[in-house]
């Protein structure tokens, strides 16, 4: 029996359109829009001005504080504007807009750095990772250096590398594991030495046996005895941190807690890959891999795209079908729908999903069928949450563990009454945060 967790669903995978397509290098284009907020935490501060010349890898946005990330110029060129643009979250936010000069010149020559990688201390490596602006590239975009420097009182004994990619449609992590298995293993070992952990576990979902073999092979070399590769049951959300930890090492992250509370740190494969690049090549994040797919494009692909590339360019390349109704950044279960195709690619853009039809917005009373309760991976009672939140009872919803909901969308997926449970939850959480803040201010 493949390892897994309780609850969850089996949505149609829809990965076959792109899973066999190698990455294509996406052209630079004539405009790159670098948002200053591409990570969870405080936005970076732009430190370049209009008309300034920049080189690829040059810092254009400075991290403000610990939980923040540096932003680097994705190519060489001229800053044409520093202004607010539409962010994938819907609001307008500060961005540095660069017009590429086509030369694509790096700030430094990176070929030399390789040799010294092995000799770096944990502190030095952390510094490099922080300076490289790496944030969780699976989509969560939590600054990686923060995850890698747990508070002193937490003893970390296990590192888990997340290669599950349980969101339907997306295949970029899959392709990345096929192309860069060894680099990912190297990245995992870097993280291992930074954290000082013994065990490394790599989790891959059962629908990617080729990636599993590749990674396993890469992990079978010498000095890799502590690396365990697991083929996990195909089930959504197998890639959610808590569920992944449960499946692989059977530990429960306490409600309201973090993986580090039980001695675990989880990193996505793409993050791990970029950590490898940062340490071995001193290379900051200036591009990422993503999947453009869905029934709304004629030419679904896996792409290697510069950060800041406007989505409209990629849609054009993938041949947007007329009449497509929805553009989603991320996967279909947790991705964010966009109203504008002008939003740029950020460090967290794991996929662009274009769908032809929109779902029915009409919803009914909960008929108490229990499907959401049976499938909720957090073992909440989503029906109760949605009903109390619909009535505006945020206080009650809080008692029903509102804050433990990870917005995975399983409940809304199975609901026969088509209830927008995740929407209620998101609103409810925002309200609750506001209330808490107001209370704190008093």
């Amino acid at each position, binding site marked *: 029996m493949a390892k897994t967790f309780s609850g969850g669903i089996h*949505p149609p995978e829809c990965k076959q359109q792109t899973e066999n397509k190698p990455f294509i290098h996406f052209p630079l284009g004539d405009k790159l829009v670098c948002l200053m907020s591409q990570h969870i935490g405080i936005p970076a501060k732009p430190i370049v001005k209009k008309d300034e010349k920049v080189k690829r890898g040059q810092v254009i946005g400075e991290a403000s504080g610990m939980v923040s990330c540096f932003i680097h110029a994705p190519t060489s060129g001229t800053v044409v504007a520093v202004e607010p643009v539409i962010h994938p979250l819907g609001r307008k936010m500060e961005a540095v807009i660069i017009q590429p000069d086509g030369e694509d010149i790096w700030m430094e020559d990176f070929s030399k750095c390789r040799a010294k990688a092995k000799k770096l201390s944990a502190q030095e490596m952390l510094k490099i990772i922080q300076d490289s602006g790496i944030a969780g590239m699976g989509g969560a975009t939590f600054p990686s250096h923060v995850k890698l420097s747990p508070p002193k009182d937490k003893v970390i004994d296990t590192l888990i590398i997340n290669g599950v990619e349980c969101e339907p449609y997306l295949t970029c992590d899959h392709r990345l594991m096929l192309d860069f298995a060894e680099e990912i293993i190297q990245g995992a070992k870097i993280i291992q030495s930074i954290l000082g952990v013994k065990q490394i576990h790599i989790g891959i979902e059962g629908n990617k046996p080729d990636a599993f073999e590749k990674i396993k092979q890469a992990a079978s070399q010498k000095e890799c005895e502590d690396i365990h590769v697991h083929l996990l049951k195909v089930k959504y959300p197998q890639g959610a941190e808590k569920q992944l930890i449960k499946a692989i090492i059977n530990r429960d992250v306490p409600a309201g807690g973090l993986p580090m509370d039980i001695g675990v740190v989880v990193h996505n494969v793409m993050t791990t890959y970029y950590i490898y690049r940062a340490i071995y090549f001193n290379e900051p994040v200036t591009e990422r891999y993503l999947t453009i797919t869905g029934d709304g494009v004629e030419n679904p692909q896996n792409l290697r795209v510069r950060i800041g590339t406007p989505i409209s360019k990629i849609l054009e390349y993938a041949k947007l079908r007329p009449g497509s109704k929805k553009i989603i950044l991320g996967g279909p279960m947790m991705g964010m729908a966009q109203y504008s195709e002008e939003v740029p690619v950020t460090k967290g853009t794991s996929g662009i999903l274009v769908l032809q039809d929109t779902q029915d917005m009409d919803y009914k009373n909960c008929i108490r069928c*229990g499907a959401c309760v049976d499938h909720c991976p957090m073992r909440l009672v989503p029906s109760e949450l949605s009903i109390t939140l619909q009535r505006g009872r945020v206080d009650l919803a809080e008692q029903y563990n509102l804050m433990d909901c990870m917005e995975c969308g399983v409940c809304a997926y199975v609901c026969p009454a088509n209830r927008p449970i995740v929407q209620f939850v998101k609103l409810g959480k925002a309200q609750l945060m506001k209330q808490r803040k107001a209370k704190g201010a008093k």
Partner: protein
Amino acid sequence: MPEEKIAEKLYTVTSSPHIHKKINIPWIMWMVFVCLIPAGAVGIYVHGIKALWVILISIATAMIAEYICQRMRGVKVTLSDGSAAVTGLLFAYCISAENYWYVVVFGSFFSIAIAKHAFGGLGMNIWNPALAGRAFVLASFGFIMTAVWPISSNIQTVSGQPLPTSGATPLRCLKSTAEKSVGLAASKDASHYLNILGENGKQTWEKIRKQEAASWKDLFIGTVSGCLGETSAVMLLLGGIVLIFYGIIKWYLPLTILLTTALLAWILPVKVGWYNPASGANGIEWVWFAGDPLFHILAGGCMLGAFFMATDMVTSPITAKGQIIFGIGIGVLTVIIRLYGGYPEGVCYSILLMNTTVPLIDRYTRPKVFGGRS
């Protein structure tokens, strides 16, 4: 501030998830409806064409009531979602086929208008609407509901044994015979008595079931007297299994109801009288372990209740644990009413009573959140 143009073309924005399982309320309701049809067909065969009229009147009334109520409440009319049709069908199944049309209309109307819409419509009702309707007509027109249970005279039972001429349901026979035995034992009227009863309690019970009530076979097929759609255990089982297969109902709820009923009906003591003509001794005794478990789950509304009434999503607990508690409760109450209560049948009231406890059950069976301390 002037309106700012934000983008050339606007796409639809909705909250995640952006894909949904192909399941909806109409599909669930119509599936239940379809799965109920075989049992109704046996009902029509056993009770004659009038049963069909009862069904049609009941469904029509339910749908009209739904329409009126939804218009009055100013909500969207959802006749096509099948929920009113299912309620109408279920109500027809749990009343006698020999009924005045106005009784059917009253009950069906009550089911929808009072038991469902007065509480806020589908999803908000506390009691199973069809059963609430049945309880209402039983209280209002009791004489019709309990007095006559006629069935077509030209029906052959499977076992070849004649149907009780009185038209009494198997459960009623059972109850009245047990009661009679107590009286007869006291009167020492051996001539009459021995026809019915054996020489001790256990034999007595077996005999009553075989001779007076109905055979297992008849109960299983449905060629017995009873409410319109409740008699055919096999057809109800079939429909129930289809619903379980499609995940519309959970197997553990009907199973707990049936198991609890069978177990308790077998164990719990019944008061019977006995008489031994040879010695002239007689007495009244509480006989333990004398009940016939299979008889109790095949007879009366047990199958219909277990598979189609108790499993009503809206009025049953939401978690598996809750449903099991709910099922046990229904089984216990059913047997207590059947053996010791004033009515021969107890499924309807047990389910209604347990419906009332659902919010409480839900509250105490809320699952422990992932990573939560118990």
